[in-house]
């Protein structure tokens, strides 16, 4: 009801309405829902994830909170009216660190709901190409953490991995590690977001944010002093062939910023 009122009160159609939400999937979907209604009524809309840097003047700003019902509706519609792979694109894009990602999702959905399942193949459409490109990059990054995440054993016996991804890859790598380490207790902590992927032996994984205290405990563990970390470094150093040294090839495949949390590059 409240929004309906707003719609009537702001009349100059030229004024841009900007919908801002938290950087969280459900909130982004709620934001799409809200912007969609305004867009349908002919208002120029913009969408953005909350961020101090991207505050804009000369627009009517609407802050959209997470609304379970609405988010679910959007998700259901994408799956049913476009396709499962379209939903995958939207999800992966939402996990990126790209500042305009909600806008990209919105623009894609405009085409998607118009054309249905075939829209994901319309690579000549700018909006489709953009989301595909972002999703591809996020997918690549997730894959790199499947390759390069390193675990160490906490004194409690839990395997723990610290990562600092640009994109929010935790939920994307969760299925892989849950299968690989199915009967192990482990967690993967995103240092930047303070989020943890938790897995108890033979149970489904779940995601939750860590309290300050928990976070500090994880950080305080000296992961480089493990026996197996030393053994791994020994192996790593001995397996390279001196006569074939090739640092360029090494950095091409494994850019330096990934190495911060990799056992073999910490001593």
């Amino acid at each position: 009801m409240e929004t309906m009122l707003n719609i009537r009160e702001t009349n100059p159609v030229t004024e841009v309405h900007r919908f801002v939400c938290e950087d969280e999937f459900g909130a982004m979907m709620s934001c799409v829902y809200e912007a969609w209604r305004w867009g349908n009524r002919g208002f120029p809309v913009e969408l953005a994830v909350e961020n101090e840097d991207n505050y804009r003047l000369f627009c009517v700003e609407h802050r959209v909170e997470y609304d379970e019902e609405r988010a679910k509706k959007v998700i259901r519609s994408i799956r049913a009216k476009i396709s499962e792979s379209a939903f995958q694109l939207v999800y992966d894009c939402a996990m990126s660190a790209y500042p305009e990602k909600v806008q990209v999702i919105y623009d894609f959905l405009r085409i998607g709901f118009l054309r249905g399942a075939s829209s994901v193949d319309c690579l000549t459409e700018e909006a489709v190409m953009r989301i595909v490109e972002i999703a591809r990059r996020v997918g690549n990054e997730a894959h790199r953490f499947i390759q390069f995440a390193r675990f160490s054993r906490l004194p409690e016996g839990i395997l723990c991995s610290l990562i600092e991804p640009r994109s929010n890859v935790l939920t994307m790598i969760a299925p892989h590690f849950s299968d690989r380490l199915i009967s192990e207790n482990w967690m993967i902590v995103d240092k930047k977001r303070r989020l943890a992927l938790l897995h108890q032996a033979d149970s489904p994984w779940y995601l939750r944010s860590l309290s300050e205290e928990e976070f500090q405990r994880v950080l305080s563990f000296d992961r480089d002093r493990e026996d197996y970390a030393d053994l791994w470094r020994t192996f790593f150093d001995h397996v390279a062939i001196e006569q074939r040294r090739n640092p360029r090839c090494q950095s091409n495949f494994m850019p330096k910023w990934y190495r911060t949390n990799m056992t073999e590059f910490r001593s």
Partner: protein
Amino acid sequence: MSERAYTLEEKLAILSDAAKYDVACTSSGVDRKGKSGQLGNSVSAGICHSFAADGRCITLLKILMTNECVFDCKYCQNRASNDIPRATFTPEEVCTLTMEFYRRNYIEGLFLSSGVRKNPTATMEQMFQALYLLRVKYGFRGYIHVKGVPGADPAVIREIGYLADRMSVNLELPTGDGLRLLAPHKTRKTILTPIRQIQQGIAEDRERIGISRRMDRAYGIREMTGSIFHDDNLRLSRNEDEKILTFGDTGQVRGSTDDYGINYGADTGTSVTSSGGLVPWAEARGLSYVPAGQSTQMIIGATGETDYQIMRVTESLYRQFDLKRVFFSGYIPLNEDAVLPSLDTPVPLLREHRLYQADWLLRFYGFRADELLSEDRPDFNVLVDPKCDWALRHLEYFPVEVNRADYALLLRVPGIGVKSARRIVQARRNGRLDFPDLKRIGVVLKRAAYFLTCNGRQMYPIAIEEDVLTWCLIADEGKKRWEVEHPGEYRQLSLFDDMQLTMMPTVEDCGKSLYGQL
């Protein structure tokens, strides 16, 4: 040279150092889900976990069971006549390292090779012990690549194959003559016999689970009439292949086929050699026999073979032994010996690179060795890659009209890779393609432009003339070549610039990205 008591770390240092010259690093070719109560899974595309200082990917814990060796292969660091520290893992130690490294996401699995301790059979029994413990007692479901030791009892080769995803027996040197000279304890027969046995085992097991006896190959390549994987060529070249593989490089008969245990039946893949019969403990557990296939490798540049001979051997191996991969290992001088190249011989990196490019052309592009090289032109051009080189010698096929050419011909255009060719075939169903479309599809126009027309038009008004084109292409190729030869030095241009490498290599091995866009 007796062993003293080493710590686990010292053993690991010695036995990884001794194993590193083996080239295979892949964990690909098998999908296996995790299972409660066990550890690990396997992903068919393979996963690289790190990159060593030599730029090679690290996927598996690559170690020797022992570096003791009663053989004396001249080129090898572990040869009996070298006075070096010797160490041996216990089977339990191999398991602990594999399990704990795997848990920490350092590796995808284990690559286990070995020096020959006492004799080949005893050696492989030790390896079997380790793998049996790992798979059966500890429930390890990650990837295992194990070496077959030439001369080992077929029974142990048979059994160990059920614990491994991939097996490889090293061909060591491209020709029998080379082997006689540098690896006096090995013969073509002792090497090819287990390769044949493993091939048999794989074929039988594939048949048992209801898939084709032969390994899967690249899209469309079986149907290409000229390709080495086409059924007709498989049959027609049998005698020729047999000669190439079993005899010395002089081409003279040195024994009958029976001597080498290679006796072909009337049908593809059947032979007198058997896979070795039932293995009840493996069948009870539903294990597959070497599901990711068999590979081999040979040393390049220790003996005097030409590239042509090497490629002939390679294609014969694919055809007659259905290998998944053949690897090349540029000779690295480790020992001083009258019969070896001198110690200051540089590693033949460019040559190795060209051979891998050519290998890619056989496996994905439908080329045969005799199209790339010949007796008169036995070595690869150092200036341009083998595919460009072929195109320059066959200008009669070009320019190719993108909107009409069939898949096989598109694959032969320099700058069009397997992915682009498939995309072109798909995209042109919806309309005619032009140069900007090709660019979007991923064609490397810098190279392809000289060989293509779109709707009858060429991109640059350049006459198709061999020297003009060679000149254009060499300018482009030069910097790549420089970089392959000077891997230790930084230079502004990356080896991958022209390859448009935007993704991490995840498949087969890190080399793939290099060859994907030939």
